[in-house]
């Protein structure tokens, strides 16, 4: 008879374990408020990423279209993937001295791994990580960006 009793115990234990599982899913089935998914494309207006979120590298310009990049290419050296290319030019200061200035801050977004080493390395805190994450484009050439806007020049007093 012991075979029969543990046979029944076995079946009872099995059914009980199945029912506890079903009780849990049943609870979620009857409580739609527990829903956690976020409707991404619709809530794009209200969606705000954390302010330290690393989306892409951005050169900050103020209203007078001035930035703080001296063209020292510390970020270019710090970058492990060769994402940043600094092209310099020499413009003549009023006293006639040659002064290095940035001509083009070329940034390959498709190579960047958002490791934040360039931001840490920049002596004048000229570049910052933006919070954008929608980087997909139809043409790969669009991913090679020039960060310094046209006609922008370095802010006074930044050395």
């Amino acid at each position, binding site marked *: 008879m012991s075979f029969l009793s543990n046979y029944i115990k076995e079946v009872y234990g099995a059914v009980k374990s199945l029912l506890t599982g079903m009780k849990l899913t049943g609870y979620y089935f009857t409580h739609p408020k527990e829903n956690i998914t976020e409707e991404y494309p619709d809530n794009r207006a209200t969606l705000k990423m954390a302010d330290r979120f690393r989306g892409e590298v951005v050169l900050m310009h103020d209203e007078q279209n001035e930035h703080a990049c001296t063209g020292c290419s510390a970020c270019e050296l710090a970058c492990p993937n060769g994402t940043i290319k600094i092209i310099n030019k020499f413009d003549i200061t009023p006293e006639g001295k040659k002064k290095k200035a940035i001509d083009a801050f070329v940034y390959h977004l498709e190579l960047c791994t*958002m490791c934040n080493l360039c931001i840490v390395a920049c002596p004048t805190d000229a570049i910052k990580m933006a919070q954008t994450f929608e980087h997909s484009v139809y043409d790969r050439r669009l991913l090679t960006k020039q960060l310094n806007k046209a006609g922008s020049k370095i802010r006074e007093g930044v050395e």
Partner: protein
Amino acid sequence: MHQEIKTTPSGDMVINVGPQHPSTHGVLHLLITLNGETIVNLDPNIGYIHRSIEKMCESLSYRQFIYTTSRMDYLSSHMNNHACALTVEKGLQIEVPERAEVIRVIISELTRLASHQLWWGSMAMDLGALSPFFYAFREREMITDIMEETCGARLTMNYVVPGGVMMDLHPDFQKKVKAFIVQFKSKIGEYHDLVTGNIIFQNRTKGIGMLSKEDAISYGVTGPAARGSGLSCDIRKLYPYATYQKLQFNEILETAGDSFARYMVRMREMEESVSIIEQLIDNIPEGEFQAKTKAVLKLPKGEFYTRIETARGELGVYLVSEGGTTPYRIKFRSPGFSNLSALNHMIKGHKMGDLVAVMGTLDLVIPDIDR
């Protein structure tokens, strides 16, 4: 052309599982010789995601190579970076401030929790239960939000730099971690109701994929997979690093050595990690979060080895330096690599359905194997 079915001389069928397969979680290609439904032999063919991180690191400076390691085992990326930072700090004899060490350990334990939750969800999905995945991701989402707020990225955080951490903690870091602990504690019971207690799950994992302690040592299996067969190999306990000496936590050991034992080790390790975070979250010491380091780091000539415990096992970083600014040779002893080598031994004679169960409890992450 007629693609004839490759059969071995003894008439068994050779079947390709992967590299494009739902339950290998990555590009793992297994050549399985099947005799009917039972597996005769399993030959892993890896290398589909081999980027040769070791060769890349030879041309990166000591600050730069750390970020590549978070692409190795992306689920415990913070711990990989932590290991590399420890190696560099051991070489340069840098004294890491107390606050940085505690922050590193908290984020490590949070990453371990997130990795175990993803493992739990995807293992249940492999065995056919599709809902647990979403319950696991509900809690994991809270951790990734914390990471996004403090470290700036959700998966490959790159928060560790030689000498400490890159930025200080976010002001409401502690508030969010405490909220996560409350939520996790209330939901861990659900994990057990839905999967652990389930009779079908127990039949699918009990007595499957046996691994004895001696074989675990001989195959070099480490982490929860080895602790499932009673081998005490938790590096946090044996060779404590960072602040693990001062923490009270016990090493989870199961002796059965089958898939269910490995499963239970990870489930109880989740609770252990929560208790570690609880011990640390309230007394994070004040002070600066990063030691002063020179601009260009030059390690002295010699070799340095660090062992740490990631979510999958023991990660070893063996760094040989010639005194230059870049490592001369670096070798990552990855836990997934040796865990995979034991798979053939564990799966012999089992059915196709068991392959999924055993691989689930081995918790393989393929970039960690290929590097």
